[in-house]
């Protein structure tokens, strides 16, 4: 086949394509749908809906602890973030406002995806399906999460970290909290379970615990190795405590003694200071107690609720989750 023939075929093919493009009836746009519940999304996005249903976002209104702290949301201030209007409606970067309906669904599909024009923010454009997705880069940006989560400074903490710097080390909210279902095939989307502080494995990956002696004095190092924000982030509820105890030569373990607390206090806790550990930072804590000259065990615990039943005699093994522990010989 010579060049002329090839060119002829190409022109013919292009002409045929042009004719199809001109005379083909465009795919019909789907009529706008009134989005009144995230259960509507499950009709097509069952997997995503199931993941979200298992998430803490889905329980933002019904969770027992928040009901207790807000007196069943008679503290109206809590509604702004626990049942927000769609963030695209109030605007990415703006503060969320409370909504009137489907509050039991908490931070739901509609809250994050519904746009002002009735379409759904997504990763592609398609006007032929009921949710009429529109590709919106803002959807996965930290600013979208920040409308609520930066009320506690989490996004600002990330911005100050090395993870926010462009380049190969760049990682943002979705990198850790909404990972790709299949890293080899991004078209399969991201996990919508949005794991965070309730996932102990994720918490464990955030920090490292090291113990050593310096002139016989135990020195405990805690390093924020994996979180792209403070450890722990979010004020009020989250806390992480370093405890230690002596171990007698016969293996008998002493009582846990508190060494340090990582926490940002809530607004009512007057005079308390913020001791969260920023991303990439290390804190070194010395145990000056003579009882620590022998063998000791050091442990880092994580608490979803900051208070112990008896602050003077805290029992971290019962009331907190063990993140890491280490033993140190005399």
């Amino acid at each position, binding site marked *: 086949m010579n060049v002329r023939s090839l060119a002829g075929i190409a*022109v013919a093919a292009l002409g045929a394509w*042009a004719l199809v493009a001109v005379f083909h009836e465009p795919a019909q746009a789907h009529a706008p749908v009134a989005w009144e519940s995230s259960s509507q999304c499950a009709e097509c996005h069952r997997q995503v809906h199931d993941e979200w249903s298992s998430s803490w976002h889905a329980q933002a209104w019904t969770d027992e602890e928040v009901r207790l702290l807000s007196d069943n*949301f008679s503290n109206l201030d809590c509604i702004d973030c626990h049942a927000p209007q769609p963030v695209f409606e109030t605007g990415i970067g703006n503060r969320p406002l409370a909504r009137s309906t489907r509050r039991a669904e908490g931070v739901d599909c509609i809250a994050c995806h519904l746009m002002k024009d009735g379409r759904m923010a997504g990763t592609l454009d398609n006007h032929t399906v009921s949710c009429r997705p529109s590709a919106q880069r803002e959807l996965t940006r930290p600013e979208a999460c920040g409308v609520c989560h930066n009320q506690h400074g989490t996004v600002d903490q990330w911005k100050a970290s090395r993870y926010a710097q462009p380049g190969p080390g760049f990682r943002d909210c979705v990198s850790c909290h909404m990972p790709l279902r299949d890293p080899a095939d991004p078209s399969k989307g991201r996990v919508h379970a949005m794991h965070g502080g309730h996932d102990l494995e994720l918490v464990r990956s955030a920090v490292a615990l090291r113990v050593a002696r310096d002139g016989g004095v135990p020195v405990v190092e805690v390093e924020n190795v994996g979180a792209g924000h403070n450890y722990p982030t979010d004020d009020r509820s989250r806390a992480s405590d370093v405890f230690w105890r002596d171990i007698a030569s016969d293996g008998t373990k002493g009582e846990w003694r508190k060494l340090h607390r990582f926490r940002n206090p809530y607004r009512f806790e007057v005079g308390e200071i913020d001791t969260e550990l920023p991303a990439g930072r290390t804190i070194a804590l010395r145990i000056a107690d003579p009882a620590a000259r022998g063998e000791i065990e050091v442990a880092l615990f994580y608490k979803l609720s900051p208070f112990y039943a008896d602050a003077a005699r805290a029992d971290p093994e019962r009331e907190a989750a063990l993140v890491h522990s280490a033993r140190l010989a005399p």
Partner: protein
Amino acid sequence: MKRALLALALSASCAESTAPIAPLTTPSARNLTAVARANVARLEVEVGPLLEPRSDDAELAERVTGLLESVESATLGRVAREELASLAPASLPLLARRLNDAELPAAQRIAAIEALGAADSRYGAEQLLARIEAMRTRKNDEAWVRAHCAWRLGQGSQDWIVPRMIRHLRYETDHETVIWIARALAKFGNYSGLDALEVVARTAVAADTREGANAARFELSGACGFGSPEALAGAWRAGDERVPQPPLSRLRQLEIWRVIAGFSEWQLRGVDDGRFTLARENSAAAALLAEALLDENRYVRTHAAQSLERMGARARSAGPALLTALDDPELEIFVAEALGSVGCEAAEGELIARLDAARSLEVRTAAARGLASLALASSAMALDVHLNDSAPRDLRFAAGCARLRCSPLDAPAALVTWLIADYATGTGETASSEPALRAWYAARPDADLAAWDAPPDGTPSARIARRAELLRAALPR
């Protein structure tokens, strides 16, 4: 030719990918301006800046020191205190330094507080108020100093302290200071401290503190001509005209406008404090909040509407302004609820119209909530239409709660049973269903309202369980 074909093809493919775009929410056609910022600027000019009196007079400083050192003297103490109170304004910064000097003996610091208060000036009151507010940044702050400052502020005439005192009351942990703040607020016709006094009277560990709080409650209600603290508290909440309401000074208006302007801030902490403060301000603040409904900033307008809603019947005067704001698409759901809460009966028709299926579910639900707070029997029929199973659940629930409050005696049994069941789960809209079910329960001839209204004795879920028991027992067999 090729170029033409390519252009043809491209235009065809572009046409295909253009999705129809629904019109965006149109901003309000009302004339919106920077209302809050303009009022702050105007009042700042009118009242002038807060100036620190010049205090570089060495002789005066020596005199202040000498007088303060004499206050503990049995013979010279009274005279020294009187003289301190009559010193020139230039002494005030010197006295403020003594107030904040933790090394000084308590008697000298108390004398400094009294002298700062006796000046009854903007500067002196600012020093006392700032000392109280410092609690929020200091650990183990001296509670006795705060109590003295609060007491002294209640003796003066600086009413602009009210918004900041209300905000501080949200954080105050010392019971004695709470008592004096509540008294100081009452001095300026603000009885929002009565709730805190009731809590201290019930829960303080020390008997004399409980007695002090109770004495304050009875003293304040007696002074207003009410037979009991509960009667005064009820009248205050209802915006009863028998509760004295002195006019707001320009300085106090400035403080209120500053809070309103702060609604545009991004951080919720300050906004939460602002809503808390203004919802507890005097009725006269409602006029300022009503004006803010025309602010160009959406958040200022929204939180002004929410503050009016939380102010309740005391904000009745804002009804007409709210009714106008109902046409603001960004405000509609907040205003609908506020209209009911402030008791604007003229809004009934507009709210009923917003139950229509042509409106968004958000608006319909908010309108039903507004009608619930209005609790007018005449709304019952319009609400009944939305109680059937085909209505969206949120609307059906809100209309059901409203139906109970509007006409509890003839509420359908199935509706009551459904609302009780939802309430008992403790995970729904209990803030809506609780007052509705109380209205239904209170209408029963055998209602035990004392049991229903018993002070909280545990967690919210324990309270719900207790009340759900009462409700179930009251259901017709």
